[in-house]
């Protein structure tokens, strides 16, 4: 069954809110930029967990109750920065310590009594699931309809052939948050083929889709966009077009092109 998951057509990128294009810095606060993007038709925001963005979302929640928030998890750039000092498990434990024991109990982190020990045992899918809980806590008030695995994490796990991590992520998104699981990737074809081979039920893939074929490499004699076609025709996946233009802010014609292509149900824009 080709079920479409309803998401806004025009989705704003969170990174572009905190780091807008240098030629487009009008509206000096994140809130002002977000408000402006909504006026220009953005129906949702796809974002990593970021304090400034959380604050802006809280401020506009009543005014725009229909606005869709799509979390990207985990916050890999922040995690990598911490891991430079403390190692990966250490960085996970620090996150846990920050919410505190009672905080973790309140969050319902499964096996909270065991969480630090589990982190120390270095089971990566478990580290990932603890990060998921910690970060989703910040997003739960926005009732996200879908949650996305961050692209570096997803592509690393893809290269390492880690079916279990994707399966655990999908299960956690559905069972704990009633959210549709999705992945961000810059390796659309390989990702879709693997998810299918592994029989992991993740329909939403947010991947580069643009006229310049940027990050859409040829596969043998098949051009990037041609290689997307059979996967999308299979009806097993729903493409959210990312990096739709090499220019920032995203030009209107790039958005039209992506949405009129028939390949993507939504597109990510930057401001």
């Amino acid at each position, binding site marked *: 069954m080709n079920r479409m998951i309803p998401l806004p057509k025009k989705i704003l990128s969170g990174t572009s809110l905190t780091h807008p294009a240098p030629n487009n810095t009008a509206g000096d606060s994140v809130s002002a930029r977000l408000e402006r993007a909504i006026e220009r038709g953005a129906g949702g925001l796809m974002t990593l967990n970021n304090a400034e963005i959380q604050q802006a979302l809280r401020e506009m929640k009543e005014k725009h109750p229909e606005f869709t928030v799509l979390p990207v998890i985990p916050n890999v*750039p922040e995690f990598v920065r911490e891991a*430079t000092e403390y190692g*990966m498990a250490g960085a996970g434990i620090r996150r846990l310590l920050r919410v505190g024991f009672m905080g973790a109990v309140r969050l319902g982190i499964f096996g909270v009594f065991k969480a630090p020990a589990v982190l120390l045992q270095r089971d990566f899918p478990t580290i990932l699931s603890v990060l998921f809980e910690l970060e989703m806590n910040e997003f739960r008030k926005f009732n996200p309809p879908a949650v996305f695995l961050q692209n570096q994490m997803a*592509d690393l796990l893809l*290269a*390492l*052939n880690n079916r279990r991590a994707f399966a655990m992520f999908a299960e956690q998104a559905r069972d704990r948050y009633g959210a549709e699981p999705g992945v961000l990737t810059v390796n659309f074809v390989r990702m879709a083929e693997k998810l299918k081979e592994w029989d992991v039920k993740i329909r939403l893939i947010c991947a580069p889709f643009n006229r310049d074929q940027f990050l859409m*490499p040829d596969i043998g004699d098949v051009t990037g966009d041609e290689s997307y076609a059979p996967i999308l025709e299979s009806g097993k996946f729903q493409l959210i077009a990312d990096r739709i233009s*090499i220019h920032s802010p995203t030009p209107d014609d790039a958005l039209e092109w992506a949405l009129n292509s028939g390949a993507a149900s939504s597109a990510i824009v930057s401001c």
Partner: protein
Amino acid sequence: MNPASQLNICVIGLGKMGVMHCAMSSALPQTQLCAVVDRDAKLGKQLRSMGADAPYFNSVEAMLNSVKRVDAAILATPQFTHRALGEQCLAAGLHVLTEKPLAHTLADAEAMAAAAAKHADRITAIGFMKGHYPLWIEAARRLKDGWIGEPESFKASVNLSQVFKPMKGWTFTKDQAGGGVLINTGIHLVHLLTMLFGPDAHVISAEGGPVHSAVEDRITAIMQFPNGGPHGTYSANWSVEGFPTEATRVDIEGDAGRMSITDDWLRHSDGTALHRSEFDRAAFNASPDYGGEGWYNQLEDFAQAIIQDGRTARYDWQYGLAVQRIVDAMYRKLEG
């Protein structure tokens, strides 16, 4: 590719970079991961739980004693260990790709280059992954072909928002890393300058120092490339707001025009603007905002050099030493 004809790669050091190299070795058709090594056994376990399907060893000796066929090693340990481990791998007959910098001191880097020269039948490579970005290669080619005439001056900078408090870990110690932002991050930009202008440079002056950590958090240097090459300024700073990912930029003034290069764009003062999308074609990209294309191309280059007789890696240990000499000269000016 049939597994028997793939190169067997072992990755030594399973921290942040080691994980990335394991992923790349698994993704590249010419290579397969045959073993992983780290002193810390928990990291072996962690890597397995990340999906890596290769036996773990706690030392290079143990790995060499147990694994029947290892063709090459990727060294992703801290730089103060590169010399001992690199020499050990070469002596055991392996080809070696070492993460940058070649070593934490010039003396170690010189010893490594000498060891590589002694084992001339082995391929050595150094992890200057930015030098594998097709856009930077294109920029160097155009510059050489006279795109802006003779280069006269340049301004080069790399900025990153990373260090805003005293930091823990070997990366932030002179003893083990060899310095701060210059040797850990800014060395990529030094390398890019050598790609553009040649492997020797005279460092006229340097200024900078610690801001938050125990090593230099920022450095500015004035450099002159010999034989009529350009002069210019170099700056590296990892304690500056507004750069969630590393931002590199080189502006060059020539006698017939100007060009500017970033990781995304190559521009000419005549209005030509080339985006990396025209050149990036890697079959797998681990993270385009953190050097994704570079990691893949770097390993592919290393593998091709091993497979094809008579070829060296694009950036070998001799090249790594040339870059280290410039970095060392910057440190000496900074200290002097």
